[in-house]
């Protein structure tokens, strides 16, 4: 399963409603503080990367597409077609 699909599956299951790839779940108020950190842990655990303080830019995390791009950049792999 590609990065984008894995993120989509985790986020839709966690948030409990359908999400488009460019939906800003932070802006939509779907993320509380516990889940924001849970999302970080999921990305680190699933993709074997470490998110550091220098990576803390909400633009990396606010949509599935952006997060997928961020993971690709961190892992140095192209995950989107």
């Amino acid at each position, binding site marked *: 399963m590609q990065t984008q699909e894995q993120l989509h599956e985790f986020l839709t299951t966690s948030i409990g409603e359908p999400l488009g790839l460019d939906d800003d779940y932070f802006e939509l108020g779907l993320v509380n503080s516990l889940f924001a950190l849970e999302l970080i*842990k999921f990305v680190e655990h699933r993709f074997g990367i470490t998110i550091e303080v220098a990576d803390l830019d909400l633009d990396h995390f606010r949509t599935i597409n952006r997060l997928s791009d961020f993971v690709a950049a961190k892992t140095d792999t192209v995950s989107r077609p």
Partner: protein
Amino acid sequence: MIGSEIALPTLSEAAKWDRAQELPSALLRDLRGSGLLGADIPPVYGGLGASATELGELCARVGGLCSSLRGLVTVQGMVSAGVLRWGTREQRDRWLPSLASGELIAGFAATEREAGSDLAAVRTEVAEQGDGFVVSGEKLWVTFGELADVFLVLGTASGRPATVLVEADRPGVRREPVRGQLGMRAAHLAHVEFENVWVPKENLLAPIGFGLSYVAATVLDHGRFTVAWGCVGMAEACLHEAAAHAARRTQRGVALGAHQLVRSLLARSVTDTAASRELCLRAARVRTEGAPEALVETVLAKYRAAEAAAAVADRAVQIQGATGCAPDSLAARCYRDAKVMEIIEGSAQVCELHIADNLLRQHGFRRGTGDG
């Protein structure tokens, strides 16, 4: 096991501290370099590098003796965890060695008059000014706030959450010790006022906007974990004392332990204690794996362990009768301290919201947005 060699105080010493409502300065001096205050900080920063389970077992040992001292381990660990996770290399190098050794005591200044469970409501202002920030606001119930050398302050910068490290000796920091609280009486609680306190930009921990969902969430998660294990220690200590009393004490020639109603109290305490220990071990295991479920598992462990500690301490007082109510009774102290555990680092009700939310979202329910 890492941490097992650390010398801990006796129960009678802990009772004296509770009565005096302070930890002796000699103890705080002795703790420096003992490893207790930097148990899970990596050795590269001078800590012991304890695993989650080792940290938990250490907190259980300390919690079974003195919740106030465990509170010091907790708050030091919370601030250290925040710096370790979200500090720059320079910040980690600057702060962690002093926190690991105990040369610096840390306080987490989050709660305010109108912001407790809802930390998004904090009003403490972190205003950019020149090459630094000016911090203004009043924080309540800061554990070890009376002694802290540095505070991790949760505030708001132009409406966005921000966390800054504020040294206690900066002009404008004032503290008012709190005495006579229900439990954790030797935890040097204080209300702390920050009046136009200037700190350099290097003291900002994580970018503005990430103070709550990332820094405070990390810090509180660590706190819940150590509080949960402290509760296991309290429950185990109370259970041991209650059982010994029930086995030894006789009335009209019959041991208390021979009475079925006393046995019922003991059986429920055994079960509660064992269940909370298992949940704490499970949380430690998931934390070690780095899995995202670690956050909710930790909430679950803290919720159950705090509830168990309160119930087991209550039964221990009941079984011991007048002895349990005596001034220096362990059960009485735990009875008071355990109630505090049901409130701090996420009240029982906030924990319930998170636990239920976690269950419901697996069944298609829309995630709630209530923060803890």
